[in-house]
């Protein structure tokens, strides 16, 4: 089991990531930066920050992870009325190694929790989690059950919460747009 604590701040804001990257690369080169180099590198930093931010937020690929009732609304989100593909959340991938976002839809039992953790660890960074529906937020109607985990944020770091039982697919579009804003650095986390 992976026992690292998840440091969201490092991976969420692409600006900080780019600055970390450039700092590391400069220190590895071992040269003292002079003035022209500094302005050039600043310009390069800004352009690449913008490109990276734009590309990451506009092509979010969700992992198909519908467990129960909210999965039906997830399928509705991907189908003809609310078309997920036109905004870039392409057809849901079958494997976590190719996806960016995990939309946790449905209640999580104690038997299923290790599998979810394993899937999350198989995703490549930067990775995001959307908790879709009441059961993933807080345990939902099954709050008192003996086999349910009260919310997916007990085991995973969640970025966007969507309330509803089940939420309408339009709510999921709005949640994805909020996530896009967050990736682009618009909303302070």
């Amino acid at each position, binding site marked *: 089991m992976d026992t690292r604590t998840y440091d969201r701040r490092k991976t969420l804001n692409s600006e900080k990531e780019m600055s970390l990257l450039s700092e590391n690369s400069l220190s590895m080169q071992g040269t003292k930066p002079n003035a022209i180099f500094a302005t050039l590198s600043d310009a390069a930093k800004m352009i690449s920050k913008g490109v990276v931010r734009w590309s990451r937020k506009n092509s979010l690929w969700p992992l198909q992870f519908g467990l129960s009732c909210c999965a039906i609304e997830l399928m509705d989100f991907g189908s003809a009325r609310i078309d997920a593909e036109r905004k870039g959340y392409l057809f849901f991938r079958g494997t976590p190694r190719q996806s960016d976002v995990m939309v946790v839809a449905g209640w999580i039992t*104690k*038997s299923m929790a*290790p599998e979810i953790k394993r899937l999350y660890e198989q995703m490549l960074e930067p990775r995001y989690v959307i908790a879709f529906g009441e059961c993933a937020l807080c345990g939902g109607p099954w709050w*008192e059950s*003996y*086999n349910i985990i009260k919310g997916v944020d007990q085991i995973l770091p969640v970025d966007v919460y969507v309330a509803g039982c089940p939420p309408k697919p339009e709510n999921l579009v709005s949640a994805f747009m909020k996530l896009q804003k967050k990736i682009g650095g618009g909303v302070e986390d």
Partner: protein
Amino acid sequence: MKIERVDLAARLNEMRKQGYTYLVGITAVDYVNHLEIIYFVRDLAKNTEDSINVDLDPSDAWVPTITPHFKSADWYEREVGEMFGIEIRGRRTDRLLLEKWNGKAAPLRKNFNWNEPYETMID
């Protein structure tokens, strides 16, 4: 109809030969003094149905298996056995129906303790 545990397998076999070939389900109820396990069988040709009740003592809760007579009783028996702590004697497999449980607690009994540290076996 209510019968005793000793007559259970023989009675169900007899009913199956009379035409009650379809097993609808097996369930159980926990009245605190005794457990009651109920078998529902149906005759598809004549469109009649019957239920067979067996009373059990909670401290001596076992029934013989009826899978030699009704093939579909497998999963129902496992579910009732796990949920109520009833031992089904004569079964082939020991694997629990529900994934990753260790079989210590019987949830549907009335004396199930909600606050017990509920262990699950993780493989």
